[in-house]
């Protein structure tokens, strides 16, 4: 069945003209028809547009285009609902955007198109990427393909679920505090958060500008490398985009872990990690050692301050970033007698609970009299957290940790305790604060129910290539990436 192929597997068949892009696209649409009623990963699919793009890819293939030139030619890829695609909606899983349609293409969209991808379907997410379970969507929750009662993680939960349910060959998400890696871990796929500045944020609806980064969710490491290669690179439209060379990520794959020094951060291996997760992680460390890696314990003393720092920095930035959703230029408007009441009504009605909570928190920490105590202090602690990474990277090439302390929880379980929800991001958050890159890949399953467990590898800034190489070596030596959820 076509939908079971990896992205690279499909690209090879397209390149060999064994299948057409239309067949591949149709396979995804059929699969969505078959399973998405249960998974609810997709918010909308523009079928005509998708098949039109696939036909265009077939026409290019007929004219002799190759996957050496366009590695994603004819490959259906889904997009988290916060990418701006000209003429298409971008709801951010919020009511507030109403019937907004983007008047422009973002840079990632343009780059993926240039690489030949068929960008189809908007996948579900936590509203404005705020959440860890995709329950904070105004359009209903997404289900974990391994256990429909459970959450897929978030905020890119729709992306992870769609990839694992084989409804697309890859999906593009964003990661502000773990929003790619955590759902990848909870659903059992590969999720990569590139170094801040590696992928353009232009055309990505912002949550927290200094933390957000775009990255791929895919079935395996090689697929992730292809997707990253297509998206990465300097963009003059994003002042925070870094002008460094983009290596050939796929060419860098292969080999073992001989001579690679992996750091185990002492502070990550805390009490309270689920025993199944801990066991799988310990096993993964042994596997890496068996592959030739040197394991070193390292200390990252400010780890425990990550969540507090993150929730100040991220919410402060979000409070400004989300101000523009005011019902004046786009989106749903709830009228008022004057602009003030129009704003309050529009935003009171349009935003969901978690978004309101974070905007109000962010507004508060920036407000007069509190800025120094909260925001400025958090920015300083952020410096300390970054230094932890710099110091650790003096003695090791990468860090390995569990991605999440526990496997997927049941829907509704943490909805009334936001702080507990926030604390579950403890292993993924520091990477965003430090701005470096990280990847999560499957490293086993819990027993009953059978739920995926994620291994996180954190690399030095702009060393995605090394990260992918380590992840690939581990992945190829283990069976986990071949496991499929039964739907």
């Amino acid at each position, binding site marked *: 069945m076509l939908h079971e192929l990896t992205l690279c597997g499909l690209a090879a068949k397209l390149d060999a003209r064994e299948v057409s892009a239309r067949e591949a696209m149709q396979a995804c649409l059929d699969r969505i028809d078959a399973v998405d009623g249960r998974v609810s990963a997709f918010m909308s699919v523009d079928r005509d547009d998708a098949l039109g793009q696939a036909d265009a890819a077939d026409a290019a293939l007929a004219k002799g285009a190759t996957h050496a030139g366009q590695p994603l030619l004819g490959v259906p890829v889904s997009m988290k609902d916060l990418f701006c695609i000209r003429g298409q909606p971008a709801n951010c899983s919020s009511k507030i955007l109403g019937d907004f349609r983007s008047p422009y293409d973002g840079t990632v969209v343009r780059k993926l198109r240039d690489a030949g991808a068929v960008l189809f379907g908007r996948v579900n997410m936590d509203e404005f990427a705020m959440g860890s379970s995709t329950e904070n969507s105004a359009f209903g929750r997404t289900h974990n393909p391994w256990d429909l009662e459970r959450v897929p993680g978030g905020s890119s939960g729709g992306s992870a679920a769609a990839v694992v349910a084989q409804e697309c060959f890859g999906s593009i998400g964003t990661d502000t505090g773990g929003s790619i890696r955590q759902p990848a871990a909870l659903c059992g796929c590969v999720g990569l958060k590139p170094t801040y500045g590696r992928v353009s944020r232009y055309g990505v609806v912002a949550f927290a500008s200094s933390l957000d980064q775009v990255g791929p969710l895919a079935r395996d490491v090689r697929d992730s490398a292809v997707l990253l290669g297509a998206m990465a690179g300097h963009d003059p439209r994003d002042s925070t985009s870094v002008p460094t060379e983009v290596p050939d990520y796929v060419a860098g794959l292969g080999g073992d872990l001989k001579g690679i020094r992996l750091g185990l951060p002492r502070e990550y291996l805390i009490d309270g990690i689920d025993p199944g997760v801990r066991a799988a992680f310990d096993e993964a460390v042994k596997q890496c050692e068996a592959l030739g890696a040197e394991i070193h314990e390292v200390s990252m003393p400010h780890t425990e*301050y990550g969540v507090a720092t993150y929730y100040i920095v991220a919410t402060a930035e979000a409070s400004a970033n989300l*101000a523009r959703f005011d019902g004046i*230029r786009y989106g749903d408007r709830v009228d008022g007698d004057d602009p*003030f009441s129009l704003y309050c009504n529009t*935003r009171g009605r349009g935003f969901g609970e978690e978004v309101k909570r974070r905007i*109000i928190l962010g507004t508060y920490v920036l407000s007069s009299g509190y800025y120094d105590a909260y925001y400025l*202090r958090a920015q300083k602690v952020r*410096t300390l957290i970054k230094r932890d990474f710099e110091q650790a990277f003096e003695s090791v090439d990468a860090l390995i940790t569990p991605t999440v302390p526990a496997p997927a929880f049941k829907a509704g379980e943490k909805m009334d305790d936001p702080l507990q929800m926030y604390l579950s991001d403890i292993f993924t958050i520091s990477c965003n604060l430090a*701005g470096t890159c990280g990847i999560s890949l499957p490293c086993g399953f819990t027993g009953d129910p059978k739920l995926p467990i994620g291994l996180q590898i954190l690399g030095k800034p702009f060393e995605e290539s090394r990260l992918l190489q380590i992840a690939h070596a581990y992945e190829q030596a283990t069976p986990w990436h071949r496991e499929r959820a039964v739907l």
Partner: protein
Amino acid sequence: MADNDFDIQYVANLARIALSPEEEGKLSTQLGDILGYVKKLEELDVTGVEPMAHAVPMANVLRADEVQPSISQEAALANAPRQANSLFVVPKIVE
């Protein structure tokens, strides 16, 4: 660090978000918990530590002063909830 019993109505007004009385109560409690948690940061001595505003330090990222095409008036106004005379219509502003 500051007191946690912050004025939810004041902050919600600053953020321009209308809240129901139930929401106000619930958010007050939850944000109180969260602010109590972030007090953790007080434990650290941050004397002399530079605040970090960007993950990757760069400077002088600029563009040349060149005019690029704008979008059409139609495209600019296409998403407006309300428009007239090519303007975005809002309730009367009393300045």
